[in-house]
């Protein structure tokens, strides 16, 4: 059985070393009809690293995320997670892969409106077999860790946009995923709230030892990640790697400008 993630590790703690590679893609090709969305993409992402995928609309960045995340099956090429080929699993296995090894943060609307925050977070753990009481306890710990103490019983409609995204981050991390995929995670937020969510997303994902893939068109959002690729016409046209992670600088900016969590 897959264990649930614990929020105990301190932010900024060194990512645990894993025996094999993280996420790897080779020669990914995907077409929609006569349109080529991906024209042969290679990509490597070590455990605990964060990667921003940037590009204009229609560049193929969302298709890339969907192929990496086992949502789409690429027409050609391979995706491996810790050395295991995952791109060509059948529908049921890919669903299981997404549930057990991946976490997802979408722009908005992924929380179930009738569930209170704590149950929204506990649900993936329950789906992976954790008993309700234990899943709920883990969910509480995650919410407290992400600055949402006292919000456990609120429903998504009673949370602000930033709070809801932090609940979504907790939901993505509770299963202890290998990779977290975030598709425009701050697209529905104002800039300061978005920066806040990105700080929490990158810090907690790193602390949990998970890789992070963020699809965004926003340079400010991409700057929170250690690596950045540019996608144009289905090809990777640029790859930037930070020598040292300077998220701390951005954090300092944020706390000077806007103070605490919102």
């Amino acid at each position, binding site marked *: 059985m897959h264990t649930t993630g614990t929020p105990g590790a301190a932010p900024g703690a060194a990512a645990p070393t894993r025996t094999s590679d993280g996420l790897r893609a080779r020669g990914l090709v995907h077409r929609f009809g006569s349109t080529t969305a991906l024209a042969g993409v290679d990509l490597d992402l070590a455990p605990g690293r964060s990667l921003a995928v940037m590009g204009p609309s229609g560049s193929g960045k969302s298709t890339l995320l969907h192929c990496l995340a086992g949502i789409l099956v690429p027409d050609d090429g391979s995706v491996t997670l810790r050395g295991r080929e995952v791109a060509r699993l059948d529908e049921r296995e890919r669903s299981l892969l997404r*549930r057990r090894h991946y976490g997802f943060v979408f722009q908005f609307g992924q929380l179930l409106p009738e*569930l209170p925050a704590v149950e929204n977070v506990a649900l993936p753990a329950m789906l992976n077999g954790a008993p309700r009481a234990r899943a709920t306890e883990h969910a509480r710990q995650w919410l407290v860790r992400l600055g949402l103490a006292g919000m456990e019983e609120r429903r998504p409609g009673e949370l602000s946009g930033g709070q809801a995204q932090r609940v979504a981050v907790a939901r993505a991390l509770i299963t202890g995923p290998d990779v977290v995929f975030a598709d425009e995670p701050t697209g529905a937020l104002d800039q300061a709230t978005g920066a806040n969510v990105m700080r929490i997303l990158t810090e907690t994902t790193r602390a949990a030892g998970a890789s992070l893939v963020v699809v965004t068109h926003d340079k400010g959002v991409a700057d929170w990640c250690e690596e950045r690729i540019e996608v144009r016409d289905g090809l990777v046209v640029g790859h930037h790697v930070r020598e040292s992670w300077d998220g701390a600088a951005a954090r300092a900016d944020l706390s000077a400008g806007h103070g605490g969590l919102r």
Partner: protein
Amino acid sequence: MRAVLALAPRLRTAGGSDTRLTTGLAVLAFAVTTALTLSVVGGLRGFMARAANPTSQYEVDYAEPYVWLAWIAVVLLLVPLVTLGGAAARLGVARRDARLATLRLLGVTPREVVVLTVVETAAQGLAGAVAGMVLYGVLLPVWSLVPFMGSHLTVGEMWVGAPGLLVAAVAVPLLAAVSGAVSLRRVVVSPLGVARRQTPRRLGWVRLLVAVVGVGLFMVVSVAGGGLGAAVIGVLIACLGIAFATLNAVGPWVLGLYARLLLWRARTPARLLAARRLLDDPRAAWRVVGGLGLAGFVAGCLAVLPALTMEAGSSAEDRLMVDDLTTGAMLTLVIAFVLAAVSAGVAQASAVLDRRREYALQHLAGVPAELFHEVRRREVLGPLLLVGVGSAAVAVVMLSPLLGFAGVTNPRGLLLLGGCLVGGVLLVLAAVESTRPLLRQVLASRDVRPD
């Protein structure tokens, strides 16, 4: 105002396949409502005609009670018919909520939004009424296969005539428009409030008190009456109407309590989600199962009739009467079950469309499709069993002063009740399952960005 009204057809086409589907479902629901209402009224007219111009000694002696019994059937079916009609109106409005809220934000006045909705919903009601008339015409020969009073009710006897059709053509769109306008209030009051989901208002225990008083009143009157005279039956029918109103008032409250119990006991994700959905909006759940709850109530009431009449002896005329009562009970139940199943199908289809984004995103995050199917089954089946069986039991208890021991010595009616409940549950479940392809289509969609 004129410019806004000119927008109406564009709003409809801009909605794409979603809007076409919900419009289709709303029209279907209006059509079923219209066809079955016309059929029920046609049957009532048929019995009235026989009472006015009896053609046999049996009709001279017994036609009058048949009219009263037909009236009971009309009263019993009135509530589910109105409920389905209301659901159809709400369905159309719910899908337009978001775009209407946008129009409000763009500065369209509340009055213009109301007019826009009223016009569209009335148009759907009119389309449904016309389709319903055609369906009524198709059903007439089917109904006329059913034997009553030793002969068949003919198509001519059950024909409501041009005035009846005209009334339907006016009344259905009118009621649809009123119902649509009422359910639109939240958009008009607060354009920003539509997307927000507040904790629903608690349902008071006062409802339970009202229900107990209503049931008690019925029992007192039926005992005090001591016989089955026409005057008493008239009072009984009125009380039956009251009992219905009270059942409708208490239903959502009971479902809310039941949901709390389910929530407390939930151990699996499917049970947890089903309980939360039920707790989130017990009124919506009641609108789905209320049809069968009322059908269970109908079955409870009518199941005792054969036993009651057998006490009077067993002449040929009495046997004919009992057969007819059983036939009438079956017909009423079948109609109520059909209404409940259409309600369930319409409600489930619109729920899938309303939740399409959350369904799709949960599925992308690895939640298996089977979980959604199980949640949908559970959220219908739980209340269905509680309400269907529960309300039938209430009816049997209510009528126990009239029934006495006949229910034990002549169990035929109660067996019929059991059979109809099983059949009804299966029919409603089939209606829920029929929306499976729609959910599959929603889950297959990866286009989940908000634009």
